[in-house]
């Protein structure tokens, strides 16, 4: 499949995924930035941070349901990655490598964190009003939409926090971040079968916790 055709297919599926050519260009650009950062070029590392900060932050936010924790963990992950650049051999992509660092640190943090979870949720962006699926889902259930959107957000996050770290990670990466099973397998360091089974179990759990909102 050509790059353009592949992109069209992705767009039709509602997800704007990069083509192979774009990925190759991205890898080459990242490799140059990593080489420069290894020599202490902080401007190059700044560019790398800007490339991945939103995706890493979003993953860690969905893992912790806490903005402050996600902020600290994302910063620490980038600092740790900078200190470990010499150990990055390029066997996996920089994206996968830094994701692994961020995810491992977050799982360690969550294991040490008190069982009582303090939610510190971000506000919904304005685009939520433009998502017809979400609007129908919310308005079906809730006459007072503004008040209940917040309630729904809290219930959703509470249900996520009731999952184990490994199950929450798979749901976050697949159903929220839109990653493929293969990409998740590389990050979590397991095969796609394990990813699929964890995803299935996590969805079952979530469905049970959120049954009132899924009728």
């Amino acid at each position, binding site marked *: 499949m050509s790059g353009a055709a592949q992109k069209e297919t992705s767009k039709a599926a509602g997800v704007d995924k990069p083509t192979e050519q774009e990925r190759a260009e991205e890898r080459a650009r990242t490799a140059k930035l990593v080489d420069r950062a290894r020599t202490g070029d902080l401007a190059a590392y700044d560019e790398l941070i800007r490339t991945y900060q939103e995706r890493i932050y979003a993953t860690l936010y969905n893992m912790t349901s806490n903005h402050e924790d996600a902020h600290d963990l994302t910063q620490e992950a980038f600092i740790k990655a900078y200190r470990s650049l010499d150990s990055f051999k390029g066997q996996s992509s920089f994206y996968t490598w830094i994701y692994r660092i961020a995810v491992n640190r977050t799982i360690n943090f969550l294991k040490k964190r008190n069982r009582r979870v303090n939610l510190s949720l971000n506000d919904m962006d304005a685009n939520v009003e433009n998502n017809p699926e979400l609007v129908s*889902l919310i308005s079906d259930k809730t006459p007072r939409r503004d008040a209940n959107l917040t309630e729904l957000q809290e219930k959703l996050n509470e249900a996520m926090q009731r999952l184990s770290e490994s199950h929450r990670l798979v749901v976050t990466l697949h159903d929220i971040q839109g990653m493929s099973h293969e990409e998740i397998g590389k990050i979590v360091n397991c095969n796609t079968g394990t990813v699929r089974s964890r995803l299935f179990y996590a969805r079952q759990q979530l469905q049970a916790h959120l049954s009132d909102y899924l009728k």
Partner: protein
Amino acid sequence: MNDEPKDQEFEKLRRLLELKRHEVPPPGYFEDFSSGVIARIEAEDARPAPSWWRRLLPGIDTSPVMLGAYGVIFASLVIAGVQLAPSGSAPQGSGGGPLLSSSEPAQPATAPEAAADLVPEVRPVVADADVDPSAAGPLKTLGNEADHVARSAPTGLFDPPSIHNTSRVERVSFPANQ
């Protein structure tokens, strides 16, 4: 695809989870994020390198179970150290208490007195003018025995003083013209 039936089963859940994509940090949050990371890296580089034990500390597990284990290990080491330490020759019958002269009332010693007890007293050996040389033999016992027992000094700072009656016998010299 095998996943299609499963995906349909979870279709409503998937739509609900999409809500989380709209949870975003405040506007402008990511504009300053990288500069915060770079500032922290520069600050760490400017700081002097931590000593080896400070680098070791973050790696130590501080969970309650591990802290309890550290405590047990430390206590075991202390007990083992106490038992293996070379024990001094404990005086028989003293009960481990302070040694006092039998002729003196038991009073707490002040610090200078206590220190003086640790240091052997230097007493000049002189011939006693009132002593009848005919009554005294060539050898003379010096001082009160009880006093001597109390004043026998330890050999080391932490060694208990010996209470054995080690009366010193010294040779007394007499002037040649007597």
